[in-house]
């Protein structure tokens, strides 16, 4: 994989100096002093400080001709690093293979926000593109001085600046700067994280000149994976490292009141770390740490978490006091329009808590040497995790280096950052490097959860059958009880268990679409978290945060309105959707899927026309996701006797602006769709009045390979002239509604509660 440690190459200038030479390029037609002065202005032998406003923080041309692109986000396995390398190679005019993307190491990259909000290309790539363009501009200027030719007459191919006509008039990037560093300031906007932007003076290329962007280049990191030669976070080993396991209470909110260390005395090297509510064990050998965690006798405080019965979760949300209300969108006079309506259509939808349930529970390694800390983490926001570890250890941020190592998948704020914070406290307590490996039970039971919600939606119809008003309301647990990163101890289990109270963020969201109803209101209300700290039901970002639940409701409801108005669901959308790009994806998906225009449900699947218990149907949904557009058609089969849904085929039309790598994009969309089918059909975090009871793959089932669709057809709409936008999440949000709409088409029954598990569907059908 292209995550390599930063090259520590000796400065070329220093090498030349030490050899008694002062000349970088022999035979330069430009007076030596002049060339050196120009160089000195933009080149440095020593690496400038790692700051967002330095070109050297993003791009380096190495002595061997390779280019390092320092990327302050991560690639969670979607091949993002390939897209970034394509963008950098394109702007620099170097071969694709020359670019090495150095990922997610706080020692080599600035904080570009980590993986977040499908902004890998949209924000992170935009910055690297701007930096690469600026690097090319600077190198061409240097080349112009070296060659005595005006920069306008120069071009670049494969990292060689030349006039295009005279072979002698050429100089390579390596000759100009190889092994040294850009000493060039960028116009940084002063922000870190996702919004960081620091362009130079150069204007990136016109898309019509692209040679590398837009090409289907394959991932080179698949081969190391299939030959078992690529390490994950859990494979990191540090000399002297202890293995640790955390011990969580059986009842949420309970804390240890007595810990009998004698109960593990017989286990070699086993030791307890107990700090208020935080409890862990360490041992030299991993199996011994596991045994110690199992055998340690702990007396817990009495606790009775105010968890509602699972069956009354949605009633709890309905009845709970509103903590915060916000109107996200308001157009026209909604109340008046409803008062005057000829007809009102309304419905309510419900979405459960869901777990990241990454395939491996989190692991982290922390090594504290004096006041220097190194952290190996799978957190998808390693810069923020560094900040959190520094805070919980009481150290300046500069003393902590976080190195992201690929983890077992990450789709938001999973359990990885919590493990890092635990490892930091344990390493400090035992005075040696510590590797914390969570258990499966902890990975599913104690990771931050996607919030449960209800959605109340209504539409006002006038006498002519026109939709004149639309209101979309959500009432839900907050979008983030713990922030989407681990930079503050109060946002982590370790912080909360050692005495820092939860500071839940209050917020939710609204549908993203372009239905042009004359009167429109979208609002949300939040309810309080169930526990004030250390809750296994604390919420945070799970892939496409809030997207699946909100658009399950909004796009199911549009189908309900179409049915009520006796309209074909595609025709209904085309009647009201206003944005041309939205209309284009809807038309594209309808065409590709062979959409047959009719009103749902199918009328030909009753009585003798049905053989057996299986019926089939098709459903559409469409969304925006700032500002990507996606439309989908699901073709499903429903077994009415078992309630089992099989999504036979998905058709997707996807417009994320300029496409960097079409093959990579297809894989990303496919992953979104399959994972979202899983969330729609199966996934629901179960809990008792004590704690979360979804703790493994039996109690938190996901989509099996026998349930995979036959086909996922994808139409990519490329818009080279529009800046590329996100693809890592948008195709997640329309899936549930497309399936629900197809189930209605097949059965005439509307499913308004997720997941659509066989039991739930059977109950709805009966």
């Amino acid at each position, binding site marked *: 994989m292209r995550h390599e440690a930063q090259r520590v190459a000796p400065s070329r200038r220093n090498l030349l100096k030490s050899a008694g030479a002062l000349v970088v390029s022999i035979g330069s037609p430009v007076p030596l002093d002049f060339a050196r002065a120009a160089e000195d202005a933009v080149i440095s032998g020593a690496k400038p400080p790692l700051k967002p406003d330095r070109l050297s923080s993003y791009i380096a041309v190495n002595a061997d001709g390779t280019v390092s692109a320092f990327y302050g986000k991560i690639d969670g396995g979607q091949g993002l690093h390939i897209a970034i390398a394509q963008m950098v190679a394109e702007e620099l005019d170097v071969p694709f293979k020359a670019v090495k993307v150095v990922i997610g190491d706080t020692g080599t990259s600035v904080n570009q926000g980590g993986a977040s909000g499908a902004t890998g290309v949209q924000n992170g790539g935009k910055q690297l593109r701007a930096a690469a363009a600026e690097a090319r501009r600077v190198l061409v200027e240097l080349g112009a001085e070296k060659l005595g030719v005006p920069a306008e007459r120069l071009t670049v191919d494969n990292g060689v600046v030349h006039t295009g006509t005279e072979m002698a008039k050429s100089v390579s990037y390596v000759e100009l700067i190889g092994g040294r560093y850009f000493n060039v300031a960028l116009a940084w906007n002063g922000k870190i994280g996702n919004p960081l932007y620091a362009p130079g003076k150069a204007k990136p290329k016109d898309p019509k000149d692209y040679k590398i962007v837009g090409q289907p280049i394959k991932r080179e990191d698949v081969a190391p994976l*299939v030959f078992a030669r690529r390490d994950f976070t859990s494979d990191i080993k540090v000399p002297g490292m202890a*293995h640790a396991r955390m011990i969580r209470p059986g009842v949420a909110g309970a804390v240890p009141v007595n810990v009998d260390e004698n109960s593990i005395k017989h286990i070699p090297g086993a030791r307890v770390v107990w700090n208020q509510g935080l409890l862990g064990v360490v041992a030299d050998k*991993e*199996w011994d740490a596991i045994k110690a965690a199992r055998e340690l006798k702990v007396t817990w405080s009495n606790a009775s978490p105010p968890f509602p019965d699972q069956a009354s979760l949605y009633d709890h949300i309905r009845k709970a006091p509103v903590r915060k209300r916000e109107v996200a969108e308001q157009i026209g006079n909604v109340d008046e329009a409803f008062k005057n309506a000829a007809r009102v259509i309304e419905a309510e939808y419900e979405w459960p808590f869901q777990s990241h349930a990454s*395939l*491996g529970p989190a692991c982290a390694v922390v090594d504290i040497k004096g006041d220097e800390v190194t952290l190996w983490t799978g957190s998808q926001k390693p810069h923020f995790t560094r900040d959190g570890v520094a805070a919980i250890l009481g150290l300046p941020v500069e003393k902590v280096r976080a190195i992201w190592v690929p983890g077992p998948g990450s789709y938001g704020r999973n359990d990885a950052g919590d493990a890092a914070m635990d490892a930091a406290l344990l390493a400090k307590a035992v005075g040696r490097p510590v590797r914390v490996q969570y258990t499966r039970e902890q990975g599913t039971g104690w990771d931050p959860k996607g919030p449960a919600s209800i959605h109340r939606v209504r539409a006002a119809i006038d006498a002519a059958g026109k939709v004149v008003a639309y209101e979309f309301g959500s009432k839900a647990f907050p979008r983030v009880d713990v922030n989407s990163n681990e930079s503050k101890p109060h946002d982590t289990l370790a912080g909360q268990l050692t005495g820092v109270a939860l500071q839940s963020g209050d917020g939710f969201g609204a549908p993203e679409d372009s239905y042009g109803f004359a009167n429109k209101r979208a609002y949300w209300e939040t309810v309080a978290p169930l526990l004030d700290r250390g809750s296994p039901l604390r919420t945070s970002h799970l892939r496409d945060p809030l997207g699946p639940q909100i658009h399950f409701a909004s796009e199911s409801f549009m189908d309900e309105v179409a049915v009520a108005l006796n309209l074909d669901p595609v025709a209904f959308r085309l009647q009201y959707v206003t944005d041309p790009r939205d209309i284009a994806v809807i038309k594209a998906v309808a065409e590709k899927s062979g959409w047959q225009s009719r009103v749902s449900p199918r009328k030909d699947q009753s009585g003798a026309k049905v053989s057996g218990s299986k019926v089939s149907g098709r459903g559409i949904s469409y969304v925006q996701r700032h500002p990507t557009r996606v439309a989908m058609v699901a073709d499903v089969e429903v077994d009415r006797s078992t309630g089992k849904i099989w999504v036979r085929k998905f058709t997707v039309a996807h417009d994320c602006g300029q496409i960097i790598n079409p093959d990579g994009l297809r894989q990303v969309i496919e992953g*979104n769709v399959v994972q979202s089918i899983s969330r729609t059909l199966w996934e629901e975090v179960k809990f008792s009045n004590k704690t979360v009871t979804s703790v493994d*793959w039996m109690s938190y089932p996901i989509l099996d*390979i026998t349930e*995979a669709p036959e086909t996922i057809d994808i139409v990519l709409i490329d818009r080279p002239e529009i800046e590329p936008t996100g693809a890592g999440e948008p195709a997640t949000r329309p899936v549930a509604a497309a399936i629900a709409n197809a189930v209605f088409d097949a059965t005439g029954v509307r499913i308004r509660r997720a997941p659509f598990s066989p039991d739930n569907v059977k109950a709805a059908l009966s």
Partner: protein
Amino acid sequence: MDDKFSLDVDGKTHTVTADPDTPLLYVLRDDLGLNNPHFGCGLAQCGTCTVQLDGQPIRSCTTPVSAVGAAKITTLAGLGTPDKPHPLQTAYIEEQVPQCGYCINGWLLTAAAFLRDNKKPTEAQIKDALSGLKCRCGTHLAILRAVKRAAAMMG
């Protein structure tokens, strides 16, 4: 009490001293330094820890080291190499299957045993053979494409 065990892993013999109850997974990873079988659940529910014992896929997270005996252990690293890849490894690269890749041991080592014993399988047979293995990133279709491609390569 610890015992001594002699293990044949990917054609090499190793001697380890371990508690007989230790799951093979930890012996492979911690004592022999073989990182490729991964910890996923410790419950034989996901397949990330899969190795083959005498050619049959097993879950090393729940197989005590004392139960291995003289059986030959094959890990993913022993299935093939870049110079002599197993058709499934070639197919995985061609089809660009993995996202995070953490699940890879289960799919490849289970499919390898299945394709060895079942020539020209149907798609339904492939799905049944792989049922129960977990992929969280949603690469299900890519996995099936790769196994079908490998089946075709293996005739």
